[in-house]
């Protein structure tokens, strides 16, 4: 207030001059006007004061938002501009789920809450880092701060993960996922928050010295601690203390590079835009919309999508843990949009597979699920690219039939089959191999060969498998790194793969078993050949299942991996029983024939798209 008084004094003079009352009139009628003038003067002064106050408030508020004090800020000659601290939306809400409730106060829930909080803290710190107009020192300290928070975050995630593993999966959703969603909203709301709290803001700003170096950090903790406090037992002192202790307990990761990597990884996740863009893709218009027919979507386009979408897939799998059906639905939905790309690949693969058993009698096959085992050895011998099947087999004997689920992934890994001995290898092979798979038929064809069997297994066996799977993913979803999730699954997939392979032989009993084995490699070299030789039935099945699934409609994913995985699931348990209806098959056969004819005629199309291994119809 004192300041304002001064200001108004000096300013008032100016105003008087420019005001309506000119000095001349002033001097003339001194007696009559002095009094009125004085009153008016006082009045104006007061108004000016108020206006200046208002202006100051506005300027400060603006500064809070922009980080810079506006030039319009009314400064007296000797006055220093107030220190403005940019305000970042500190008032966010933690998701209810993350706040431990009295009922279930467990270590896990506590850690989850802590984790959710830490996530926001880290996010805030990161944002502070990105701020412009910072002095070097400040920036540096903020960077450090950010790294610290990141470390904490990691540790929390790890502990939470560990706990989850121990407890099995108790809560349906990991805190990780929830918080991700939250972050987006909290960011958006930050502006409005600061506006709403302007009273608070101004008061804060008027006493610059009191400002905390990291307002965001200090602010956010307040709300959650209160809640967590109540739920957790009384021994809990304060959030910050707890955090510290946590930090101490956990080994610090000395590698800065790791941290930076994490930040880069996580940032996109945290900053999810309200509407998520899918990667830019193209789709050929030569396939009917949502029809399973043949499609030739370029593998080129889909490959980027695949890489991006992979992690989400994992998440999906993990979350799908509850009912099998659910997971099916979800997966199927994802692929629906990308209808064209998947079916194609499928078809080709299938074709290659079926060569061995041209007329696959599904009914027969169903009963045969068990067969594969004994044949395994045979199989291994015949095919050069198959790794040591016996080894794999031994590891996961129980998950025999499950292969259908992951068969697709196994495709991708095929290039790496040569050295399948140890788990770590598989894991690493996974990410790498997937892109490879997308490039061309070669990668897939061998895998495709193996695949055929998946339809055959009896439904009952499948079910058991599913149950198992359900157990797996839930635990995994908290895993901070991609690898964790993959690790458990990949071996299984691998295995399945081998197990399945034997089935074809059985089927092919009547035809020529030996030939079957040999054929796949040959096809491998000649994609065209493959397509020509397709066994219709296989294709039909595929198409049919595909069609069904596509009708479920849903989010899009173009990742090949995902689709493959999905498809397998859907196909095996449900579709298998339906195969008998021959009508459908026939129709499809016709189509396939047409398609083939088309291929023959327009061979150049295939040639044109070097990257597409699929042929356009």
């Amino acid at each position, binding site marked *: 207030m004192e300041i304002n008084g001064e200001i108004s004094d000096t300013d008032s003079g100016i105003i008087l001059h420019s005001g309506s009352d000119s000095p001349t009139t002033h001097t003339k009628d001194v007696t009559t006007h002095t009094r009125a003038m004085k009153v008016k003067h006082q009045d104006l002064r007061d108004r000016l004061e108020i206006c200046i106050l208002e202006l100051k408030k506005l300027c400060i508020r603006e500064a809070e938002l922009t980080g810079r004090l506006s030039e319009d800020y009314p400064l007296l000659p000797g006055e220093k501009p107030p220190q403005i601290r940019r305000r970042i939306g500190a008032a966010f809400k933690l998701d209810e789920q993350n706040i431990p409730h009295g009922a279930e106060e467990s270590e896990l829930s506590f850690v989850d809450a802590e984790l959710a909080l830490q996530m926001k803290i880290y996010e805030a710190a990161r944002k502070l880092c990105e701020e412009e107009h910072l002095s070097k020192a400040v920036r540096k300290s903020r960077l450090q701060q950010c790294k610290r928070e990141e470390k904490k975050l990691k540790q929390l995630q790890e502990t939470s993960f560990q706990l989850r593993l121990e407890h099995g999966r108790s809560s349906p959703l990991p805190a990780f996922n929830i918080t991700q969603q939250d972050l987006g909203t909290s960011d958006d709301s930050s502006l409005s928050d600061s506006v709403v709290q302007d009273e608070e803001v101004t008061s804060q700003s008027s006493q610059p010295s009191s400002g905390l170096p990291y307002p965001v950090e200090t602010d956010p903790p307040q709300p959650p601690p209160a809640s967590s406090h109540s739920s957790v037992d009384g021994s809990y002192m304060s959030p910050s203390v707890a955090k510290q202790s946590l930090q101490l307990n956990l080994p610090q990761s000395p590698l800065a590079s790791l941290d930076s990597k994490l930040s880069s990884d996580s940032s996109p996740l945290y900053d999810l835009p309200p*509407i998520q*863009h*899918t*990667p*830019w*893709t*193209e*789709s*050929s*218009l*030569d*396939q*009917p*919309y949502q*029809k399973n*027919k*043949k499609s030739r979507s*370029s593998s080129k*386009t889909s490959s*980027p999508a695949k890489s991006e979408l992979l992690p989400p897939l994992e998440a999906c799998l993990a979350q799908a843990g509850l009912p099998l059906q659910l997971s099916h639905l979800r997966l199927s939905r994802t692929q629906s*949009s990308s209808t064209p790309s998947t079916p194609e690949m499928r078809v080709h693969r299938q074709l290659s597979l079926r060569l061995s058993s041209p007329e696959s009698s599904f009914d027969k096959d169903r009963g045969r699920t068990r067969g594969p085992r004994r044949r395994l050895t045979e199989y291994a011998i015949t095919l050069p690219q198959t790794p040591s099947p016996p080894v794999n087999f031994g590891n996961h004997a129980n998950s025999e039939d499950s292969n259908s689920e992951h068969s697709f992934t196994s495709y991708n890994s095929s290039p790496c089959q040569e050295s399948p001995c140890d788990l770590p290898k598989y894991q690493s092979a996974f990410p790498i191999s997937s892109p490879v798979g997308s490039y061309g038929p070669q990668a897939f064809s061998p895998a495709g060969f193996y695949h055929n069997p998946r339809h055959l297994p009896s439904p009952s066996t499948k079910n058991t498998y599913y149950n198992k799977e359900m157990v797996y993913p839930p635990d995994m979803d908290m895993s901070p790194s991609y690898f964790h999730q993959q690790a458990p699954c990949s071996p299984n997939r691998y295995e399945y793969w081998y197990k399945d392979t034997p089935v074809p032989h059985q089927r092919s009993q009547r035809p020529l078993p030996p030939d079957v084995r040999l054929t796949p490699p040959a096809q491998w070299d000649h994609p065209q050949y493959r397509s020509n030789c397709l066994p219709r039935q296989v294709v039909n099945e595929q198409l049919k299942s595909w069609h069904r699934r596509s009708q479920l409609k849903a989010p*899009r994913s173009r990742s090949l991996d995902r689709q493959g995985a999905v498809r397998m699931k859907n196909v095996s348990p449900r579709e298998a029983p339906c195969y008998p209806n021959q009508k459908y098959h026939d129709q499809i056969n*016709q*189509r396939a024939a*047409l*398609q083939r004819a*088309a291929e023959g005629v*327009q061979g*150049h*199309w295939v040639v*044109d*798209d070097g990257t597409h291994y699929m042929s*356009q*119809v």
Partner: protein
Amino acid sequence: MSFVPGQPVTAVVQRIEIQKLRQGNNLILGFSIGGGIDQDPGQNPFSEDKTDKGIYVTRITPGGPADVAGLMMGDKIMQVNGWDMTMVTHDKARKRLTKKNEDVVRLLVTRKSLEEAVKHSMGTYHKQ
């Protein structure tokens, strides 16, 4: 071809009529599209304005119906049979283009060379 959301778009367009090729149950258009409001426009290699979420022609099958009709790679599709294509999702665009019961699709497309050509001709016209 860039535009401000909410403002009318002005562009030089070419009318292209594609006779779909019927092969079995399948109708072939002979080109591929990319883009849509649900896709990341920044990755669109064809757009000048990287925020443009329009539908773009990404691939033309040589000798295919689209090729015959004069569609070119990189064209931005403005309309399909009168339906706006500048603000649609990728799938919507696909649907519009691949309708089974339509043997012909009429496109309004715009491309940079078109605009330049028009500008050029306008310029000479004025000079005369």
